[in-house]
């Protein structure tokens, strides 16, 4: 029984440490798509950017090219 308590206490400490880290680093349960090397030209020509998600108008989200 003492072993269970020790394991639970250890688990709790690790969980709280993870929680503190999550809040400190700003973790989230969801994550947007990360895209690398977006050209600087997007700033001058926003329409040239192909977003990762496009709305089709029917409620379905399609991944962009």
């Amino acid at each position: 029984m003492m072993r269970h308590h020790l394991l639970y206490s250890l688990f709790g400490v690790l969980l709280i440490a993870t929680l503190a880290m999550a809040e400190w680093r700003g973790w989230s349960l969801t994550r947007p798509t990360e895209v690398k090397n977006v050209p600087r030209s997007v700033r001058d020509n926003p329409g040239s950017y192909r977003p990762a998600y496009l709305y089709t108008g029917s409620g379905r989200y399609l991944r962009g090219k």
Partner: protein
Amino acid sequence: MVAPRVKGLNCPRCGAAIELRSGELAQTVACPSCAAILDAKDPNLRVLQEFTGKMRYQPRIPLGTRGTLKGDQYEVIGFQVRGIRVDDVDYHWSEYLLWNPYKGFRYLTEYDGHWNDVVVVKNTPEEKEGGRQPTVGYLGETFKHFQTATAKTQFVLGEFPWEIRLGDTAETRDFVSPPHMLSEERTADERTWSLGTYVTPQYIWQAFKLPGTPPAPRGVYADQPDANAAGAGSLGKIFRLFAAIIVALFVVRQITARRDLVLRQVYSVASHNPDSTAFVTPVFTLAGRTSNVRLTLETDLENNWAYFSLALINEQTGTAYDMGREVSYYHGYDDGAWSEGSRTDRATIPTVPSGHYYLRVQPELGSDAERPMNFLLTVQRDMPGVAFFVLALGVLAVPPLFATFRHHAFEQMRWRESDYAPLSSDDE
């Protein structure tokens, strides 16, 4: 222990050797061979009752076996099987009579592999009034009523300090306070109370140096202690400590979160064609340690929807965080006012390093209404959340909840055999 004086006799019915170990105290003795009950006071061992039963039982601890209980050596001198009938079901248990010339008598009971070490108590327990379930108090301990039944003697071997007969009956009342059980036995002539203490089969096997391994207990016995009961309580205490720490962390986080407002701009969109609506925001700086970024969209939608393709782009590294958000708000009057959706939406981008960023926004306005849409776009840095705190509390609660559930199930099994059995779906 000094070896007791053993008196050797022979059964007048079958001639088998009979030993009387408790001397003058023996009132009756049952022949270990033919199970006839004999008068131990009679020099000729007059037959008092012949065994006519169908079932003969073999004691797990043979008569004459010596063992050490609570530091004193006892010898098994008698064995009987008794039974009760509850709801047309017969239940049997074994009782072993132990003898020490200096300490007196002691009993062991066994039911379905569960053992109790039993002594007759000198003081009458105090019966307490009131309640659906009676209780008695003894030596500061409160015992709950478990079962009332009529116990009948069904088989006897060895010697007894009272006049025992097959078919003897006694009204029994059992009260429990694990690991103890107080039992009252009432006959026409007397009323006795005994105190049993639950012991493990291994304890009995070691005490009497019995060969092999004891039969495993089945089910939960009336006074069997739940080995996990204390565990459930102390896990609950540890959980409360952790929960307090988590709540404190939540408060600290709410107080110390920077909530930096890095962008707040109002935009307007009139076109329903998303190919012509894309724009970028001015460059803003996300300072400090790696942290989250919250985007908030507050629109003035009226019975329409809008879809936002959003990309948070690092001007220096070219890394973009892409997402799509839909906002819709409809309302009207149909047998009362109604509304659905929300004019506001927000999204959090996790772990965004510091740097110079801009947002590329491509709104698509639904065609359900012709009216243009204005929206306020807000970007905030280092926003506190709630989800992880709730999640941590939920995960931490699992072990104590499981232990509590297991303890509850154990108690359900205990009381299922009592006069206070919880209703099952079959009973309803």
